[in-house]
């Protein structure tokens, strides 16, 4: 399994113009709150799951899913992305999944889980609060 040095929920990940491998991660996200009534279901229009990976295997199939902790229900899932890593497995590899229109059905804790070949290797918390 790859190792995630960072698993960050955020608004944006942008490379610096002068150095493409230096990345600015902004709008760190731990909690979302509805701005409309009724508050739920809450639709998160756009956020990113940023991963800085190492201990890479030669072949990976990465995906991201969002799971409602209280029920175990998967509320959002991305496609599996095939990735090859022919170089040094100790390199630090940045990958981001942009999540669109993630619908959170109720208040509470959600797990944003990152998977390789269908197995979770890192997860991060996202709280939805009214």
């Amino acid at each position, binding site marked *: 399994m790859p190792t995630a040095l960072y698993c960050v929920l955020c608004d944006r990940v942008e490379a610096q113009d002068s150095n493409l491998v230096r990345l600015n991660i*902004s709008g760190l996200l731990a909690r979302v709150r509805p701005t409309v009534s009724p508050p739920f279901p809450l639709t998160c229009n756009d956020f990113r799951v940023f991963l800085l990976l190492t201990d890479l295997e030669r072949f990976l199939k990465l995906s991201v899913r969002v799971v409602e902790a209280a029920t175990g229900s998967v509320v959002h899932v991305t496609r599996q992305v095939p990735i090859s890593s022919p170089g040094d497995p100790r390199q630090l590899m940045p990958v981001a999944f942009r999540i669109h229109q993630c619908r959170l059905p109720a208040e509470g804790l959600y797990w944003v889980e990152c998977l390789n070949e269908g197995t979770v290797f890192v997860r991060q918390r996202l709280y939805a609060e009214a």
Partner: protein
Amino acid sequence: MDSTSITVTADSPLVEFFDEVLPDGTVVSRGPEVVFLGKGTQVRWGNALARLGVCLDRDRMIWRAHNGDWFFVSTAADEYRGNVAVLAGDQSLQLIGRADPEAADDSGTTHSIRWDAITRVGIVSAPTGSPGCA
């Protein structure tokens, strides 16, 4: 939303994927279909081939041209053509011309080309298409 920012330095440029939900509910995948992570010329040219739509076998680092297409690989001195490309190691790409690119045998003419000597890769579509290259 809670908001702040951090800066990190990685070993390769960021790769981003997203699935866009269209108004009718259809999900459209964006971003590269196949990605090579890392640094170095083998990764650079592997991604160039992937962007051209070259297929990748799951178990071995092999690209096979389909429908009569051919790959070309240029160096400063030569241009090579083949319909099977093999990531032979960190140092070189093997380009093989084979009667049937799907064959699992060792037939065909093989050129071994150092990744750091490559200046251009591409596909020559069969039979009259213009080359796509990177």
